[in-house]
């Protein structure tokens, strides 16, 4: 007589492995006093342009570095290297997102204690990066005014996973009749209380606020006893 299969309860998080590495990274960054910001957005929202500007402007005052993820090419690293900041490209091949282990490997011989800020530019993708903790202190999600006000509603998971929403290319807002109140409402709908920055990396509008925000968060993170 055949017996029924037995159902055995187990509880295992599928992302445990990534979470373990991310926690290790976070502890390392925290001990070194490094403030780590990751950037996520769809392709073409202006992650690299923003990062380029941030590296240029923070560079003279702070020790900054960046890791940039892309499926292919080292174009972004070459572009960002013009800022004189140390930059490393993470080429993911066909993988659509960065994982904590890739960040750990890419860091290589860099000593976080020699850095005030480390920026991690994720692969352009509003879906897959949402679930992967990279050990960052803050996650920025970018949306450009040309993408439409409903981006947060279409990709609630990633907006909910981020700490700060950055509305980019604001110099084009009038041309595309961007509806600010609607965009703000949609962001707050998926992540109540979310911090919102508005800027144009091209014209520099809003950059001062963005840099001041980053510097204040760095100071705050160091004020907390480690």
């Amino acid at each position: 007589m055949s017996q029924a299969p037995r159902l055995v309860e187990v509880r295992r998080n599928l992302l445990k492995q990534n979470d373990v590495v991310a926690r290790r990274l976070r502890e390392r960054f925290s001990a070194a006093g490094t403030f780590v910001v990751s950037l996520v957005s769809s392709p073409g929202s202006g992650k690299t342009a923003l990062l380029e500007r941030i590296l240029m402007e923070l560079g003279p005052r702070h020790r900054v570095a960046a890791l940039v993820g892309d499926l292919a090419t080292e174009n972004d690293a070459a572009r960002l290297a013009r800022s004189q900041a140390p930059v490393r490209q993470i080429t993911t091949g066909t993988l659509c997102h960065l994982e904590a282990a890739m960040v750990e490997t890419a860091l290589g011989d860099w000593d976080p204690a020699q850095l005030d800020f480390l920026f991690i530019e994720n692969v352009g993708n509003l879906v897959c990066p949402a679930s992967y903790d990279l050990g960052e202190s803050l996650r920025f999600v970018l949306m450009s005014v040309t993408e439409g006000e409903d981006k947060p509603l279409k990709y609630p998971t990633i907006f909910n996973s981020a700490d700060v929403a950055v509305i980019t290319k604001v110099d084009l807002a009038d041309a595309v009749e961007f509806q600010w109140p609607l965009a703000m409402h949609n962001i707050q709908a998926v992540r109540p209380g979310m911090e919102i920055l508005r800027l144009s990396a091209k014209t520099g509008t809003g950059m001062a606020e963005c840099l001041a925000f980053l510097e204040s968060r760095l100071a705050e993170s160091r004020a907390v006893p480690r």
Partner: protein
Amino acid sequence: MHELSLALNLVEIAREEGARLGGRVNAVHVRLGAMAGVVREALHSSYEMASADTPLQGSRLVIEDAPVVVICDHCGEQPVPDGSYWMGCPRCGAPAPVLRDGKEMELIALEIDP
């Protein structure tokens, strides 16, 4: 398509648990939050690929959906209706930024042949 990465993790974890428990695994049960950002169909086809040529080949993947649950300051834990992306209390309407549940991706059970 991060579902393939997830499926590979799942197969590895399920193999480990299966070996620990002994016997052939014929089904793998996972619990996926509504906000986990995982496409069910993609996970099913990825699971088939990831489990090929492993002891889990031919096993079924059973997905249990977990609702988003928010914590409201006034009403406590409240499940959010399916398909809603507004992170607020469904009872009193207050914004509820804290997610209690809804992002989980867990292996919860294995069905083992006797």
